[in-house]
């Protein structure tokens, strides 16, 4: 087996960049620090691509199956006698694929940011955080064990926190970053408890052992039963809670739309292409365990994914902030991926859903990053986030227009763009699994096409608005990444994922099932057509529709009041009903008891202090009487 030891540098380089920029960045010129960060990322990208080529073109193959290769592993901390946390690099099809995804998008974002963030205060801080993020994300995907994954999972969370709150003097950004961190942290608690239970049952953190078909995780299905489900199932559900938190699945999705407060390239990198798919990656990583040891959990995953995709798609049709539309679209697409894993089987063609999910992840990373970067380019040009303040930009931003259109067509799933292939495979997998879920996803496909083109037409078509100054196309540092990503999203559909990334590592044959793909194409075209009618030219149709379905529109526009619900729970329940009473209890009851003891002591001493009158003769009298009494006592009572 080939030596992949050098892959460690994929982690070391961004970490060093982070440290260097973090400690000394303030002394460097902004441009130098930006270039340092980008250079570091370039090295990472080269290494990732080299790894991917070597791995997929033979080095990873043995007996026609892609192997799991431990390129590096060393013990970081010994926990219990059996459990120890390792830090290492595990290469298998999905991790190598993720290396490519992350390095590509991250590299594009680094270049893009050179233009987008130009002149911002804290440029070096921005790049050092980006490096931290890349480091954490890379560490997450190459984790050799679930605990390493958890560690980098947290680090990814904190880099997300830091980047969302990049404009830290803006209160909304601060609130959004706080919300993102706390919601994901809450989910991570589930993840941690899940790991606790899992590691207790299986006595290992190691992915290779965990996903081994004869390993302790899969064979120990018996175990204790709690509330009708085995302990394994519970632990896998809890682990998925962690994944759902990071991947913004319902009902833990509320942080993602707010996270758009961060700089747009950050949204592209973290909140669209890479970090938010960590949940998908987690489930894919543990897939054999889910499939064999916790099928109920997999069922839950399928439903959560499907529901989230529908839910978010509905909300996306009503939002006016373009980044929020994209955020809900991200939730919806990730719902697709999660759902696809949920309906997948294991091994060969059975594992179609698994393959499709990863494929969609790959494609989605390309086109969603493209969409966000395109949106960034638009925002850069008009200094607004609201599509109501945009229109007719196609003349001013030709490159952005074309790349954005490509991305919209891709996400809508039009043949022969990449989105078509992966979506088709997902739908096929669903078709064979559950007809209800299948129907939901069909509907979502139509909604996706509709809201994406609503967005597209509102921004680039229609008539010009009053702009402060004429919008102009972005500089080359911004448009080049757009073009590269557009090429990526067009052609990534041609990659033979069925040969490369499969559930058991063995390639299998798959083909486009036109009986499924045909109707889905028609649905997508219908969605586009409706958007064309409603938003191509200014008209009153959208408003009339909105007033006809006033209530449902209002609910969707207000995101089904989930935010308010959370606010109620945090503000009213946790803050008012728990914390304040606890604080009060502490001050008045617990501390009151202590003060009470002091008070009793003081009062009693006040009462008896009169004995100490200062009258010498009174003391003498008491003394004499006492002495006499004692003498009498000893003489007459004790003999």
């Amino acid at each position, binding site marked *: 087996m080939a030596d992949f030891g050098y892959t460690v540098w994929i982690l070391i380089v961004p970490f060093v960049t982070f440290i260097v920029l973090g400690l000394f960045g303030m002394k460097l010129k902004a441009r130098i620090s930006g270039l340092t960060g980008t250079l570091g990322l370039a090295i990472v990208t080269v290494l990732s691509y080299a790894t991917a080529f070597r791995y997929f073109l033979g080095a990873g193959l043995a007996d026609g199956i892609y192997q799991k290769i431990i390129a590096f592993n060393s013990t970081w901390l010994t926990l219990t006698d059996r459990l120890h946390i390792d830090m290492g690099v595990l290469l298998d099809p999905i991790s190598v694929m993720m290396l490519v995804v992350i390095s590509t998008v991250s590299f594009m974002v680094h270049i893009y940011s050179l233009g987008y963030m130009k002149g911002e205060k804290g440029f070096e801080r921005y790049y050092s955080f980006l490096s931290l993020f890349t480091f954490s994300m890379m560490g997450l995907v190459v984790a050799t064990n679930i605990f390493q994954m958890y560690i980098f999972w947290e680090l990814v969370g904190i880099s997300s926190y830091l980047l969302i709150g990049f404009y*830290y003097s803006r209160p909304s950004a601060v609130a959004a970053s706080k919300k993102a961190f706390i919601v994901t942290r809450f989910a991570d608690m589930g993840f941690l408890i899940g790991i606790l239970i899992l590691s207790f049952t299986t006595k290992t953190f190691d992915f290779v052992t965990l996903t081994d078909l004869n390993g302790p995780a899969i064979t120990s299905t018996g175990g204790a039963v709690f509330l009708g489900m085995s302990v394994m199932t519970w632990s896998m559900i809890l682990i998925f809670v962690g994944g759902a938190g990071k991947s913004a699945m319902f009902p833990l999705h509320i942080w993602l739309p707010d996270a758009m407060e961060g700089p747009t390239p950050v949204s592209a990198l973290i909140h669209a292409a890479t970090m938010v798919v960590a949940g998908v990656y987690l489930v894919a990583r543990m897939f054999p365990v889910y499939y064999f040891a916790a099928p109920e959990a997999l069922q839950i995953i399928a439903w959560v994914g499907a529901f989230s995709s529908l839910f978010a798609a509905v909300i996306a049709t009503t939002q006016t902030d373009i980044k929020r539309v994209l955020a809900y679209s991200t939730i919806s697409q990730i719902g697709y991926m999660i759902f696809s894993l949920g309906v997948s089987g294991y091994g060969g063609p059975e594992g179609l859903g698994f393959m499709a999910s990863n494929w969609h992840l790959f494609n989605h990373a390309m086109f969603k990053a493209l969409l966000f970067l395109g949106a960034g380019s638009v925002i850069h040009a008009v200094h607004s986030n609201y599509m109501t303040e945009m229109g007719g930009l196609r003349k001013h931003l030709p490159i952005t227009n074309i790349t954005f259109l490509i991305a919209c067509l891709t996400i809508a799933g039009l043949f022969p763009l990449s989105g078509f292939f992966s979506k088709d495979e997902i739908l096929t997998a669903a078709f064979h699994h559950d007809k209800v879920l299948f129907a939901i996803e069909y509907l979502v496909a139509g909604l996706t096409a509709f809201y994406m083109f609503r967005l597209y037409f509102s921004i680039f078509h229609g008539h010009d608005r009053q702009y402060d100054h004429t919008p102009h196309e972005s500089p080359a540092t911004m448009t080049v990444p757009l073009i590269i990503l557009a090429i990526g999203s067009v052609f990534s559909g041609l990659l033979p994922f069925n040969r490369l990334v499969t559930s058991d590592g063995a390639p299998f044959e798959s083909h486009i099932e036109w009986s499924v793909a045909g109707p889905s194409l028609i649905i997508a075209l219908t969605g586009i057509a409706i958007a064309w009618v409603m938003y191509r030219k200014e008209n009153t149709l959208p408003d009339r529709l909105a007033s006809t379905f006033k209530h449902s529109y209002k609910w969707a526009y207000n995101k089904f009041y989930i935010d308010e619900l959370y606010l109620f729970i945090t503000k009213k329940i946790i803050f008012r009903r728990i914390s304040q009473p606890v604080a009060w209890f502490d001050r008045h009851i*617990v501390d009151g008891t202590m003060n009470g003891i002091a008070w009793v002591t003081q009062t009693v001493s006040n009462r008896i202090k009169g004995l100490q009158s200062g009258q010498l003769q009174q003391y003498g009298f008491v003394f004499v009487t006492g002495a006499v009494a004692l003498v009498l006592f000893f003489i007459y009572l004790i003999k």
Partner: protein
Amino acid sequence: MNILSCLVIIPLLTITGILLVKDARQARVVSAIGMGIQLITAFIIVFMYLSERKAGNTDQMLLMSSYEWFRSLNIYYTVGVDGISVAMIALTSIVVSAGVFASWEMEDLKKEFFISLMLLATGVFGFFISLDLFTMFLFYELAVIPMYILIGIWGSGPKEYAAMKLTLMLMGGSALLMIGLFGIYFNSAPDGGELTFNIIEISKITIPIQAQRWFFPLTFVGFGVLGALFPLHTWSPDGHSSAPTAVSMLHAGVLMKLGGYGCFRVAMFLMPEAANEMAWIFIILTTISVVYGAFGAIVQKDLKYINAYSSVSHCGLVLFAILMMNRTAMTGAVIQMVSHGLMTALFFALIGMIYGRTHTRIISEMGGLMKVIPFLGVAYVIAGLASLGLPGLSGFVAEMNIFFGSFEHPDTFHRVATIIAITSIVITAVYILRVIAILLLGPVRDPHYSEFNDARWYEKLSILALLTGIVYIGMIPSGLSGIIRDSIMPIVEKLM
């Protein structure tokens, strides 16, 4: 002379030095030099300990020496260290040095302040190296008493009340402790023979179970008061908020660790049977402590109060882990002591520095400090992240050891307690981020803030000393954890 005794002698020599110099400005230099030497000594001891272990010495205690003190009562001055005491010594020396630098430009700077501080340090160091219960108790008292003077004179707010409350509650604990220690002493020779205060000697015999049932709770609660055991923790918020910066640092950073250290070194190590029997009561109390402290911290308005409640929560976790009585959890407890010591000292140092600039500690009266004092702001954020258990910083290592260790217990009671304790990490995130958001981020609240200076050299020195420890433990935990794991073994074996 034994090198361990240097730890007690150096602070005393420093006190002599301070008495000789003219004013407080010179006194602080003397203290800084003294504590610098102390720091070096501490690390020489760490190094000696490690090389001795590497050479294959498997005794429980190393570098031991013993001097007779009271023949008739068999009281000795016995010192010796294992991995746990070494860790605590390193922690203490870092925190004390940082404390001296943090009070470099204190208002109302007095020689006596440094004298009391050094006296406190003497007590703490002496406590950690003592192996004789009586000597240990003596040093314990020596550490508690100067606190009264330090808070009562140099404190802020209702300082007399706070000082009185703190001292009385700790003294109450000491009273229980003293009974407990004498109980141990008088049962230290159940088969006849000479009574002893020596911990190692006592650990070799079994104290009769009836006696253990009496004296274990007394000793545990006695030390527990100092370790902020619910419901005897209320000295902590008032005491910490009134104490001057350096004293808060030392108190939360080191003195509270005396409680945890004593709990397992004395109460559990010497009376394992009763510990096993009664652990459940204290597990319930500490679980409450952990969650309750965290919830209490959410609504506080004063920075120091937030930290005091957070300390209740974190120190609760220390006692919680100790009571889990297995190797991993107890290792976690010790790492948590070190980690919390560094982190909370850093917090209090920063709060002191921020207070020195804004003259308020109410968070809602401040805002946007990150822009004006970035060094302090970043340090505060890092301390906060360590506190909420971010990987790569010390808190995480400790918490993971604790949670995984606690979960080793196969019964429902321990597991439910563990899961309840785990919820604290979310609550911690809430209050830490709340403070960071209000205090540091957002728009600059007051135009006068632009006149603030960022950290001065002595402040930077103090902060960096603590930060280095936090990052080191977080990044490369295996060294510390390995030392502690080996040293915790005899205690765990006794408890099994």
